[in-house]
């Protein structure tokens, strides 16, 4: 009955006397109201801060679970396809492969069923005895090459660097001369002129390097006026070589006094020479420079500049006597040179004669040019036998045997084989990953960053996916999953429930129904201690329970918890760090919660129900069993589910009793080693790599969904329960 305290509190306000009067009173009231409003805002702000904390938490998890990733293939799948089909082309029957083009021409010349391909320049020299077949409806010509209608074309380039061109103006002048004469010389040698836009780009590049306005025409160059600033050294592709040589000859004939050195070593070697210390001045190239070349040259302080100078083309040639082949498609060519044996397979209208194939030698650029264009299918389009061929080509015999033993390759479907090729050969690896915010607001930066990764490509990825749910743990984050952890959590929870539920409810019944009736003073005291003790246990940090479990279940009772006592495990390897130990530890941990919750539920059952039972002559247990428990069960279950969800999320005690950190086998019995979801989250969060942060976030979503379903179940039960009472 304390009314007194209020008086003493209110008194303070009146210490200074009575209420002020007039304006002072108004000010006094205003001040108090203002204070009220300010603090009201502060209270609301605090509440909003608390809600925002929850929002920020969810935001972080969602942010980290999705986003762009940059994947890098260990082996480029396009190269794989190309290599396997090229191998099939070389191995096809009735195939003559020769480095000597004359041999090929002679073979095709008189045979109407023969087919072959050459560089267009070579075909142009033999136009009288051979016939070029249009591909996809386009015959090889300057026009179709320029428009891109004819597929077997590739640009030819020369490369230099501003550093070189500015140091040696004769190099710059030579390139100018080259660009001015490229078109005529290309035609002379048997190539096609460059694509108009690319050629214009080359001219602009030259102007830019020479600090001239890029909209003007190239200044005319007189070789006789060009100063000799040392020998101009040029090397690289053998395809470009004849053009460069021709232009160099013209340059000197026009009066250039200095030296010129032109060599053919191949495109790749040409770039290496250019990027070496004191390298050559110009590279002839039949393939564009890649990121590696740009990087290597940048290291040598040479910034590569590309000049497109012409277009090379392949001619698909047949004999003049061939009167049926009017047109082929690239797909037909692929089959003609790899798998078809007779012309009738290409088209039933063609003669039923064997195909005679004439192809250049493997050392020639022409063969790889043909292969690059023809064999450009995706990995997924390959038939099963090609996929098997890829596996046989790239895997060690031991690995192949292992795979065959698991599931014979020949019996697998194309899809299964494709997955195998992906996993075993292509081996995509996530090399960079971005969170959702970076992905949405920094898309350009992500793509720009990905450009620097050789063989890399960008993909929007959800770290939470079906594979993540069904895969076991792995040391590679993108392959790792939570399957083992989910099963571990379920096993631990199962044991926790079957241990803690009966004991907890039993204790609650005792404390609520029996302890209150006890007359013996000692027992009364003891019961009071039990009650206090339970309240205290609820406040013990969970890690202490871990220590208890470690010392008692894992160590002292090892023979039981490891399963050796029941012959369920091998005594030499088994130890007590099992599902059973974890479940028992968790049971002790949530026991106080279950007891307290169950006590409340039992206490809520109206006394009249018990009295009714007793009045009918039921014993105490009969009353409890038939009257109290049925009414308390929903409440008990609600409390139990909440206690269990606490156990689902507990981490520290399980770390202490020694959950396995890396395990890929699902638990099968109470004596299995295990890991749980929170343990996985902890392990992955502790890793420094960003990818592990992402899978930790994904695992958190799984855990939260599990907990949310548990809580939803509790809420449903609670609702049902309150309806019953109403």
């Amino acid at each position, binding site marked *: 009955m304390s009314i007194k305290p209020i008086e003493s*509190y209110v008194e303070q306000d009146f210490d200074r006397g009575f209420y002020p009067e007039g304006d002072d009173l108004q000010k006094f009231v205003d001040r108090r109201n203002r204070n009220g409003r300010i603090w009201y805002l502060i209270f609301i702000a*605090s509440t909003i801060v608390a809600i925002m*904390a929850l929002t920020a938490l969810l935001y*972080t998890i969602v942010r980290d679970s999705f986003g762009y990733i940059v994947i890098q293939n260990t082996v480029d799948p396009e190269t794989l396809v190309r290599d396997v089909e090229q191998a099939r082309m070389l191995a096809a029957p009735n195939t003559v492969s020769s480095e000597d083009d004359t041999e090929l021409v002679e073979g095709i010349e008189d045979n109407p069923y023969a087919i072959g391909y050459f560089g267009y320049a070579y075909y142009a020299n033999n136009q009288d005895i051979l016939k070029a077949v249009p591909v996809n409806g386009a015959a090889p010509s300057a026009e179709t090459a320029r428009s891109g209608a004819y597929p077997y074309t590739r640009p030819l380039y020369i490369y230099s660097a501003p550093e070189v061109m500015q140091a040696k103006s004769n190099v710059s002048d030579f390139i100018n001369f080259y660009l001015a004469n490229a078109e005529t010389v290309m035609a002379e040698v048997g190539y096609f002129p460059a694509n108009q836009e690319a050629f214009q780009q080359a001219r602009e590049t030259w102007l830019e390097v020479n600090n001239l306005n890029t909209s003007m025409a190239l200044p005319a160059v007189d070789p006789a006026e060009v100063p000799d600033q040392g020998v101009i050294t040029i090397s690289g592709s053998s395809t470009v070589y004849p053009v460069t040589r021709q232009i160099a000859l013209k340059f000197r004939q026009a009066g250039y006094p200095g030296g010129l050195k032109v060599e053919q070593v191949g495109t790749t070697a040409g770039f290496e020479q250019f990027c070496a210390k004191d390298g050559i001045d110009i590279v002839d190239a039949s393939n564009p420079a890649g990121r590696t070349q740009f990087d290597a040259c940048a290291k040598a302080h040479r910034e590569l500049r590309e000049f497109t100078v012409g277009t090379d083309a392949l001619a698909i040639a047949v004999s003049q006597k061939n009167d049926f082949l009017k047109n082929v498609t690239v797909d037909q060519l692929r089959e003609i040179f790899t798998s078809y044996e007779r012309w009738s397979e290409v088209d039933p209208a063609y003669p039923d004669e064997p195909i005679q194939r004439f192809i250049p030698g493997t050392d020639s650029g022409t063969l790889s040019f043909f292969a690059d264009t023809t064999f450009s299918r995706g990995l997924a389009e390959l038939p099963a036998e090609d996929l098997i061929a890829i596996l046989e080509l790239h895997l060690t015999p031991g690995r192949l045997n292992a795979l065959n033993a698991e599931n014979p390759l020949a019996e697998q479907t194309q899809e299964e084989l494709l997955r195998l090729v992906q996993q075993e050969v292509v081996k995509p690896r996530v090399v960079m990953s971005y969170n959702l915010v970076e992905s949405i607001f920094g898309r350009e930066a992500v793509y720009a960053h990905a450009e620097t990764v050789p063989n890399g490509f960008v993909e929007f990825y959800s770290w939470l996916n079906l594979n993540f749910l069904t895969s076991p743990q792995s040391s590679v984050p993108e392959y790792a999953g939570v399957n083992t952890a989910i099963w571990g959590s379920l096993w631990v929870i199962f044991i926790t429930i079957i241990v803690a539920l009966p004991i907890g409810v*039993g204790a609650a019944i005792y404390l609520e129904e029996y302890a209150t009736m006890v007359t013996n003073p000692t027992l009364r005291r003891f019961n009071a201690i039990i009650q206090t*003790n339970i309240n205290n246990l609820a406040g013990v940090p969970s890690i202490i329970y871990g*220590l208890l479990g470690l010392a008692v279940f894992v160590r002292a009772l090892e023979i039981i918890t490891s399963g050796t006592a029941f012959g369920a495990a091998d005594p030499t390897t088994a130890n007590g760090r099992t599902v059973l130990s974890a479940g028992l530890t968790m049971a002790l941990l949530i026991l*106080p919660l279950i007891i307290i919750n169950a006590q409340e539920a039992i206490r809520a059952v109206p006394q009249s129900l018990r009295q009714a039972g007793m009045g009918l002559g039921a014993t105490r247990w009969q009353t409890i069993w038939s009257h109290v428990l049925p009414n308390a069960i929903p409440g008990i279950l609600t409390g139990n589910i909440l206690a269990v969800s606490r156990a689902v999320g507990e981490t*520290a005690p399980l770390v202490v009793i*020694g959950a396995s950190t890396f395990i890929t086998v699902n638990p099968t019995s109470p004596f299995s080693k295990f890991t749980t979801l929170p343990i996985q989250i902890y392990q992955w969060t502790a890793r420094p790599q960003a990818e592990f942060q992402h899978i930790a976030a994904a695992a958190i979503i799984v855990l939260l969904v599990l907990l949310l379903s548990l809580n939803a179940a509790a809420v449903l039960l609670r609702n049902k329960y309150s309806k019953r009472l109403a």
Partner: protein
Amino acid sequence: MAVDTSASSAVSTITLPDIGTQLRKQPRFGEMIIEGLLFLSGAISILVTIGIVVVLFEEALKFFARPEVTLLDFFLTGTWQPAIGQFGIWSLVNATLVVSLIAMLVALPIGLMVAIFLSEYASARFRGILKPILEVLAGIPTVVFGYFALTFVTPILRGLVGDNTVQIYNTASAGIVVGILIVPLVASMAEDALHAVPRALREGAYGLGATKLETAVRIVLPAAASGVAAAFIVAISRAVGETMVVAIAAGAGPRPAPFINPFNSAETMTGHMVRISGGDLSYDSVDYESIFAIGLMLFFMTLALNIISYYVVKRFREVYE
């Protein structure tokens, strides 16, 4: 059911005049067994407590019996370096205190203000929305908060204060997040206490001309002081025992005490226990025994706090009828 059949057979055999005496004298073995089992269930909780105390003491005693460990150094020095035989618990306690202090600076004001708002200002409908949200917050596993500390709070702190000042693993971030994690606990316990203050007191204050704020802060809050204080103490105990957030975000490696800079990494008692036992800990090693000694210390710290809170509630509670 065994009990039912035995009871009904007993009824059928007795004669009417003796029914009272017969029933009284009838020993009900089934009932007694059940009562015994239920009593045992209750007594298991005592066993758990005894188990905890015995286990902690047993291993801690082994730890202190080691030649390299002395009780004096344990309690009076501030360097924890098992590798060189230095076992000064203050290194770990200091970190725990720094984290708990920061956590309290976050949790107590926010928690109390949320409680006041919920109890005194919020409409019934708003409270109906907000309380479940707080419950959800309270139900999120602490390992998730650890993740939150490391990937959200730490980068923000580093952005605000500077990368050079704030280490990746730091006690400030861990402390703030432990605070956030405790807010629902403080709010809900304090709200219960405030809500229990009878309406008559508030009406009385209004009748005397007090504003809502004055009523809440000067009338209701003092009347609920014991409950609010108990909430605070339980919150401290929770912060001291909190494990996963500090294990993830506060850093690995004990820092020699005394230190106060919250932007440095430091290992707390719980953080150290988790890290040491993370690997396969071999029994009877110094590390194995040392975590029990730390556990014992932690157990007593939290026990003391819990007992104080219990005492505060009991001693200072205002009883209204």
